[in-house]
């Protein structure tokens, strides 16, 4: 019951499931003896053996396809894409098979699999290591997309993802892998999927976010509190399907909404949230919705990375604009 970081909570959840469910296997590049490039599977091969924690050849389409194959035969594979930027060769398997197997066979074959991938910018990583493309998966019918933002949520949501009878993409914002430590009880208790977490109550404005941006958003909320602006902070957590009700409820109360995401803006999860407000909460809105998002550019190499990433400053600027409207 020590305080642990988010990446350790990921390990802990994996370890828990390996121990309690013999159908669970982990597979991916460098997940074995090396324990993953971020140590998310650290010690697991040593503890559970190389038949449970499997280093694969370097071929993502193959990893995804085998994961689908394993899952259809009743295993519960947890595959790792080493970085989200390398998940593209998995697309065909994810979209055409994992997402469709249950529907295609009318329930005869199912895909209880998880694909984990670290993602997002901010750690000075090389090219292709920093992108946020959750929206592409969120657009895909038949899969869940889950993004934790704290050690305890990583633990509880990953347990739920592994146990879920359907495919889950579990995207881990690596910038906050070791940001804060939190007490996580290894009790095997899962957290609910498909639900937002209300991280802070407030009355003046609703800040909606997920993943690493939860950090900046909470900091912004702190700063706003000093300006006597009471911000409600919502962590979407499952970005597909989205728990729109919680968001609508909050906006009904506050009348204002700013959505914060690291991903580029165009056709994104933030777009969906804003669009749904435009459809269903128009009369709640006392001011335009605002999105604080990555620019629609290639994630820059790290010299300009910070200029790409939404900052507390940008959030405050957006909030102040929205608050000015009366």
């Amino acid at each position, binding site marked *: 019951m020590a305080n642990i970081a988010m990446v350790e909570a990921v390990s802990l959840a994996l370890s828990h499931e390996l121990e309690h469910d013999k159908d669970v*296997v982990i597979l991916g590049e460098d997940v074995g003896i090396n324990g993953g490039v971020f140590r998310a599977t650290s010690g697991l091969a040593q503890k559970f053996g190389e*038949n449970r924690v499997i280093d*694969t*050849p370097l*071929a993502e*389409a*193959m990893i*995804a*396809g*085998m*994961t*689908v*194959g*394993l*899952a*259809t*035969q*009743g*295993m519960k*594979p947890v595959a790792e894409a080493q970085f989200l930027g390398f998940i593209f*060769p998995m697309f*065909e*398997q994810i979209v*055409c*098979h994992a997402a469709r*197997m*249950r*529907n*295609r*066979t*009318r*329930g*005869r*074959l*199912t895909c209880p699999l998880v694909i984990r991938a670290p993602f997002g910018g901010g750690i000075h990583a090389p090219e292709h290591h920093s992108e946020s493309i959750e929206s592409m998966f969120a657009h895909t*019918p*038949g899969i869940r997309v889950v993004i934790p933002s704290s050690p305890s949520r990583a633990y509880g949501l990953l347990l739920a993802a592994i146990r*879920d*009878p*359907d495919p889950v993409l579990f995207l881990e914002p690596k910038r906050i892998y070791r940001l804060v430590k939190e007490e996580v009880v290894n009790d095997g208790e899962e957290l609910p999927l*498909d639900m937002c977490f209300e991280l802070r109550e407030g009355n003046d404005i609703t800040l909606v976010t997920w993943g690493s941006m939860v950090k900046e958003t909470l900091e912004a909320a702190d700063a706003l509190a000093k300006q006597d602006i009471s911000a409600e902070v919502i962590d979407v957590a499952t970005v597909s*399907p*989205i*728990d*729109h*009700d919680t968001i609508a409820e909050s906006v009904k109360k506050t009348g204002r909404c700013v959505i914060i995401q690291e991903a580029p803006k165009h056709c994104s999860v933030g777009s969906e949230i804003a669009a749904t407000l435009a459809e269903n909460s128009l009369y709640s809105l006392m001011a335009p919705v605002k999105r604080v998002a990555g620019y629609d550019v290639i994630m820059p190499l790290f010299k300009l990375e910070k200029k790409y990433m939404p900052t507390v400053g940008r959030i405050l600027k957006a909030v102040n604009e929205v608050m000015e409207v009366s």
Partner: protein
Amino acid sequence: MTTVASFSVEYIQYLSPNGTLTGETIPPIAKDFETIKSLYKTMVMTRVFDAKAISLQRTGKLGTYASSLGHEAVHVGIGSAMKYEDVFAPAYREYGVQFIRGVKMSEVLLYWGGDERGSNFSGPPHDFAWCVPIATQNTHAAGAALSFKLRKQPRCTVSVIGDGGSSKGDFLEAINAASAFKLPMVFVIINNGWAISVPREKQSSGETLAQKGIAGGLPSLQVDGNDLLAVHHEVKKALERARNGEGATVIEAITYRLGDHTTADDASRYRPDEEVENAKRFEPVLRLRQYLMDNNQWSVQQENKLMEDCAIKVEAAVKEYQSASKLPVSDMFDYMFAELPHDLQEQRAFALALEEENS
């Protein structure tokens, strides 16, 4: 300069195009006439079914359909070599394998009739469904094979791939996976000469397609895919190897696509008629019948009886297909997830209400 590795690809045929046994060895199945007769019947049935399916499509009673004309020996050869508990990963036209494994003709029709229930078929529940994205079935098969290995089950997978599909990364990665994990599986490359309009030669200048297995150091061979005995025997041997923990095998079965790619295709646009006419001389059904007849195992009367039987069974399958219950609109929602998320519940209710309004 030292030679560090050498490989070769053998070609195997037991039954010549004119129905006589060739070669030095004779596989056990060659003398098991009861089995051959039963497989022959399935081959003929598959062909009768195929013709019916095409005519259903032509008369608007079926969607696009992928014919198996000419592939009967390779399909039935594979099916007959497998055990029920093995897993089959098809592409989209290997009905002969599937009929042996218990898939119903009406289910094949349902699928091509635009009805997902066709894939919830009566074959082994662990078998994969038809797989349209080329070559993706090969890594599914590898995953299934890995599950058997991890669980120490004496089971194997067989996956097929076309000559065209043999160019796609997924197939090549699956071979590599089979090599790296020493998986209990068999790859059959069904080389029917064409990938829609693209001839075999344009896929690769390699002498064979079998040699793609050499990339992973797998035993790799060619068989005459119109020779039921060769396909059956070699797939069976490969399955035994796999079951004994000796790893995977790649078998290229050389056959010919006697029809169009699918009913949406018109092969006359790109393929000379003479090539097809010539290929008919090597087709699989005739040669097997000849073999049976030459061995006094089959008669014209039996053939006539079989054709009648097939017609009756195919008619019954068509009836069954056509009497399938209407698909409710809710069906498109109800198998998306084990439990329907909130959002989709709303969309489902909307769609049902719309249906109500419009009726």
